[in-house]
């Protein structure tokens, strides 16, 4: 397996270590701490209230996990040692960080699986839109006026920590609910879904309103109504009736109040008041599942299973996730997850190919096909339970006649509708690295960038983002007037001649150069500006690769790193929060299972759904592990 050797070295380092002790060991870490940290944090010195005296024994890694974690975060973020103080070489720092992470994780996992908090968070913009759509059966985007949500945690806009509330939310929720209800009340199909009765011979207005509100409330709040709860909203109905308003107007007012209630707008679960973690209740589970795999409220079947108390049964969960992944609504999961994981959501926002240089991108059908390719590809992998390694390399993609043409492929079956199509031989395609969306989002608007593409692979696929350039990066010295214009490759080689730059760029640049046969839009090219494209490069261990096919082989040799990264991203998305150290035990467990089961996509989904953080609710004592996983 030729790929394996170079890739093992791909992310490790060549520089000489300045301290004693095997790179990444207890001794190595202690040597670094003694050399760089104890002056301020040793003996009687406790700068920032932090002292290393208690952290000199191997046992401290067990009993002082909090302190070690604090240290790890500061060192990993390059916040310590502070600017201006002597600091370890990048390689030493990263070896220490990697070793500490592994060790602390192993220690944390020894205690068992701990469910993290399931914090109250509002529906994000997309969830709000989809929930209103499903609740009222209306085809309007009720969220059109809401501001976009920022991302936190693992990089997704459903992270509890960054779902802030601004004044504009109050205004928009009020308006959006009113608009959607008015719209729904006028549409016969929608009306039937939520306005269940009108007053008539056999039914008084009050009863008719009660029937509607009582049925609406549990769906909107995604749990059974509490005693007397419906009556609080019916008070608004009665009040409007007294003022002489029509029946419709009065009942819509009650529904409107439900739609701006925090119980509708927020994900919120009944508190667990016991000391130990417990299985989340069935209604909570219904919502956890549906917002994970559909980005919307539970449907009738999920509510029914919750009512029957069956949603924590493994066989039921398995059947449900298979059903849910086949449902068209899983497109929303694929879209939100993939476009944020791979960063392709920025395409057309902050990242747009230059209109003059790349007019092809500005054909509406082409643009749509480009943007949706990774999404539909991912959805296909999930729904038909294919290997996740297809993400790295595949024999097919979801193509239209436009993308087929863009990629220079002669495929007769390609038409306007995206569909699963096999690549012809020597197509140079397969996996996300051959997709226009990915290649464009890792380019500048005018030209490709091996640096951006290399960084994209390290960050998005491998989950090992390079650190930012050090301050005072020397300018590239190739721009004297009269000097012959140097190629990008020559300029980057100059750059790498500088040892400060070399440590990272030796890792970044060769990965990106391997993709140079793709232009900004991902079109295959063998020449650029009259010169042959040079897609060769040398990985840090000296191994040579040339072109995308070599690169993909190399990445396949690192498949477990990529799958682990994908697992932690998806777990973060599913939980709607950033992951903690104890969550990484869950990630390890799921990633190992995925590898055992031939990287099958549904193993990943099942692993997440069956995991302790996804199914349990923490108790009142923080960091308590689940004693016996059900």
């Amino acid at each position, binding site marked *: 397996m030729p790929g394996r050797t170079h890739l093992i070295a791909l992310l490790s380092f060549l520089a000489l270590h300045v301290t004693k002790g095997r790179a990444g060991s207890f001794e190595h870490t202690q040597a670094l701490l003694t050399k760089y940290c104890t002056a301020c944090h040793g003996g009687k010195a406790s700068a920032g209230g932090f002292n290393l005296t208690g952290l000199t024994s191997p046992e401290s890694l067990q009993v002082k996990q909090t302190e070690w974690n604090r240290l790890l975060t500061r060192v990993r973020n390059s916040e310590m040692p502070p600017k201006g103080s002597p600091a370890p070489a990048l390689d030493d720092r990263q070896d220490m960080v990697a070793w500490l992470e592994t060790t602390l994780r192993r220690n944390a996992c020894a205690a068992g699986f701990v469910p993290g908090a399931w914090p109250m968070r509002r529906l994000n913009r997309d969830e709000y839109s989809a929930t209103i759509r499903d609740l009222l059966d209306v085809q309007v985007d009720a969220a059109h006026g809401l*501001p976009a949500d920022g991302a936190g945690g693992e990089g997704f806009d459903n992270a509890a920590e960054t779902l*802030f509330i601004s004044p504009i939310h109050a205004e928009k929720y009020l308006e959006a609910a009113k608009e959607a209800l008015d719209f729904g009340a006028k549409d016969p199909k929608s009306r039937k879904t939520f306005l269940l009765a009108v007053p008539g011979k056999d039914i008084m207005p009050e009863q008719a309103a009660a029937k509607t509100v009582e049925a609406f409330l549990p769906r909107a709040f995604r749990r059974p109504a509490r005693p007397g709860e419906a009556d609080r909203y019916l008070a608004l109905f009665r009040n409007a009736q007294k003022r002489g308003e029509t029946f419709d107007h009065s009942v819509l007012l009650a529904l409107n109040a439900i739609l701006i209630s925090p119980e509708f707008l927020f994900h919120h679960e009944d508190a667990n008041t016991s000391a130990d973690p417990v299985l989340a209740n069935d209604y909570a589970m219904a919502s956890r599942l549906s917002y994970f795999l559909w980005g919307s409220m539970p449907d009738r079947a999920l509510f029914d299973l919750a009512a029957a108390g069956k949603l924590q049964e493994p066989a039921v969960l398995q059947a449900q996730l298979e059903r849910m992944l086949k449902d068209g609504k899983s497109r929303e999961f694929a879209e939100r997850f993939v476009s944020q994981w791979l960063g392709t959501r920025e395409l057309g926002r*902050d990242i747009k190919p230059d209109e003059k240089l790349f007019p092809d991108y500005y054909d509406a059908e082409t643009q749509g096909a480009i943007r949706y390719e990774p999404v539909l590809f991912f959805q296909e992998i999930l729904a038909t339970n294919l290997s996740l390694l297809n993400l790295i390399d595949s024999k097919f993609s979801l193509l239209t006649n436009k993308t087929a043409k863009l990629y220079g492929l002669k495929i007769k079956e390609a038409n306007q509708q995206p569909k699963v199509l096999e690549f012809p031989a020597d197509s140079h395609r397969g996996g996300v690295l051959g997709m226009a969306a990915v290649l464009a989002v890792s380019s500048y608007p005018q030209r490709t960038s091996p640096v951006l593409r290399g960084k994209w692979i390290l960050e998005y696929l491998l989950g090992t983002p390079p650190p930012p350039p050090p301050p005072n990066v020397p300018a590239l010295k190739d721009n004297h007037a009269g000097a012959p214009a140097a190629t990008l490759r020559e300029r980057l080689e100059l750059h790498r001649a500088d040892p400060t730059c070399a440590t990272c760029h030796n890792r970044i640049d060769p990965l990106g150069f391997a993709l140079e046969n793709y232009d900004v839009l991902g079109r295959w090219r063998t020449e650029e500006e009259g010169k042959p494209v040079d897609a060769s490069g040398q990985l840090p261990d000296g191994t040579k690769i040339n072109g995308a096919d070599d690169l993909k082989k190399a990445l396949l040799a690192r498949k477990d790193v990529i799958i682990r990264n994908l697992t932690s991203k998806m777990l973060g998305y599913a939980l709607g929060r950033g992951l903690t150290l104890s969550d990484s035990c869950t990630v390890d467990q799921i990633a190992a299972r995925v590898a055992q089961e031939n990287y099958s996509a549904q193993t990943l989904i099942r692993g997440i759904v069956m995991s302790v953080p996804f199914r349990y609710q923490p108790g009142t004592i923080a960091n308590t592990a689940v004693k016996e996983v059900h």
Partner: protein
Amino acid sequence: MSRALMSRNPKISRRTVLRGAGVTLALPWLEAMLPAATSHAPKLPVRMAILYMPNGVREDMWTPAETGRDFTLPPTLEPLQDFRGDLNVLTNLWNVAAKGGDGHYVKTGGYLTSTTISKTLGVDVNCQGVSMDQMAARAAGPVTPLPSIELGTAPVTTGVDTNVGYTRVYGSHIAWSGPTQPVAKEIDPRNVYERLFRACNPSKVTGREDVLLLDQVRDDAARLRQELGTADRHRLDEYMSVVRDLETRLERAGNNTGKTHWKPRARLDSAVKPEAMPEKHAEHVRLMLDMIALAFQTDSTRIATFMFGNAVSNEDFTFVDGVKGAHHSISHHQNDPEKMRQYQLINRWHVEQYAYLLRKLREMKEGDSNVLANSMIVLGAGMRDGNKHDPHNLPVVVTGGAGGRLVTGQHLMHTPDTPLANLWMTMLDAFGTPVPRFADSTGVVPGMLRA
């Protein structure tokens, strides 16, 4: 009877009832920090707007060579020739709190707070302060239908920046109503227009019903709150706080309480209703600036912030003659003369847009003067040279006399590294909401406030 309806009883103030229910609606530390509104405010309303430019400026083309009243506008500021008498160019200000950290986020999230934001991917977002505009809005109280407007052209940048360890939320917000509360921007000019329209034309009927609905929300929230832990309560309180503010506004608009009698100072013409989300950046910016002008002219609000782009914006600027690339890429010019030339063209384009807004405001007559004369409009950036992410000597211009409160027509040279907070403090004073101190401020800007 539900409390929502009971609270319509004039003898029992709803606010008293809610306070009794243990609902904290304002954070005590914020109250303590708030400046008091002064009584000797000028007769015509004073407005303030802050226009934020991402990615810094080309330094050798920004700063006038001479100081005082007799100075020549440098190439980048040339579009302000018409406003020479109305402006203050300030040199050598900086935000010490933004000197460390990374290239962009620290210099954006903390721009109007003069604080150092906490490094985080999201878990504990904290900008460590309240932005100057939000402080002014709080202190001025609900004198206008909208306390402030926050505008931009780009949605929150997606994802987290794992290279530098910050959530991109920081780079997408300059307005913070509290340390953990970035204020979301409106980016669709049509939505802004509709918001202004509703502010200027409140419907008594729907207004009354909305108040009833919001009452119900607060009732729900008060119940729910009892079931929640501290962290979750904080989130719920955020929602309750914005609900309460909206309710107050609606009540005043419906004139139920009769405390103030706000009237639009100009009619909002429906002919100026803008298109929704224009494709072209230049047009998008113009429409958003139009909305600021309309908001100020009608007096729908007196405070606006506008972000031309988020931090690290890589907006394609090839629409500007002579520019061949995108903003952030060009800002890293590496001293390449060609890139520096293009960088300056982009900077100048921003100044032209600023001048467009100034012109519009000046054309809006108000008594014997005009809206610009009663405003303070800032154009600035969180860094100087974008290539170096330089935090020193930030580019900043303020135009408008704040209804005579400000001396204008000068280039004010400070000692290097004078706090930018001094300018924010000066503006808070001119706005009629003085503070004894703002972040690291050392006093007001000498020679700017009229005695």
